[in-house]
């Protein structure tokens, strides 16, 4: 199918694939630079999660454009949906676990709303810590007795 002067659909799809792939490589490399360069674990989680999600999605779309075969299309669709659901959940759980272990923020970070909410609503992580001290006290009492 000729659009003009030998520019076929296949050539157009290959150019689109190259463009998506270039965007994906920019995303992935910027994400890796963020993982290396940013000052804080929370900032690094942010950089890695966003750039990896967009980069892998663009790369799968590029694969769909170049090799337009049915298995590639279905597996790419499944993988794109999975990545869009799973990567934010994973990075969110990682950040929440880091915050629960009182990982200090970078000193130039402006706010810590999760800590304020923990203080205000009593979501504090002192519950396991309290039980740990209680068990410590109990075991100490046991030893004393």
């Amino acid at each position, binding site marked *: 199918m000729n659009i003009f002067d030998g520019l076929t659909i296949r050539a157009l799809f290959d150019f689109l694939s190259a463009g998506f792939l270039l965007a994906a490589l920019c995303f992935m490399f910027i994400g890796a630079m963020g993982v290396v360069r940013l000052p804080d674990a929370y900032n690094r989680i942010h950089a890695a999660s966003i750039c990896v999600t967009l980069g892998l999605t663009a790369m799968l779309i590029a694969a769909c454009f170049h090799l337009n075969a049915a298995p590639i299309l279905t597996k790419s669709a499944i*993988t794109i949906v999975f990545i869009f659901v799973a990567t934010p959940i994973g990075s969110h759980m990682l950040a929440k676990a880091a915050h629960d272990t009182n990982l200090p923020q970078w000193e130039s970070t402006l706010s810590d709303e999760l800590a304020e909410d923990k203080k205000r609503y009593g979501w504090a992580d002192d519950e396991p810590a309290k039980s740990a001290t209680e068990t410590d006290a109990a075991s100490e009492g046991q030893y004393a007795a």
Partner: protein
Amino acid sequence: MNMLTHLSTMLAAAPHGDESHADESTIPIPPPTTDWEAAAQTALFVVVDVGMITLSLAFVMCLWRLLRGPTLADRGLASDTIAMQVVGLSILLTIRIRTLMFFDAVLIISILGFASTLAFAQFIARRRAV
């Protein structure tokens, strides 16, 4: 040397251009017919080759973070990113040599990366209470 000659005879005897024994998992590529198609294919393959180098560089940078990372969250995050870069490398390999064999690994490695991230988060969170 003997093994090498044996391997080369095995490769020569393998059904190479035979259409009846063609590999099911390889997508055949027709030769480009116009100048635009040749230019597009060359551009795509140049981007793929540059991308393999770029992704390997990103892999090494994340490996440095994995080895050095001051906290446990940094290591978990770096391992998650490394898994996703392995997925990207396998997509590039699929585009480059036009085979379907490595494309199953994409979904599997992304699921494994997600599960390992969750396990890392649980490990970090439980480590405090103990």
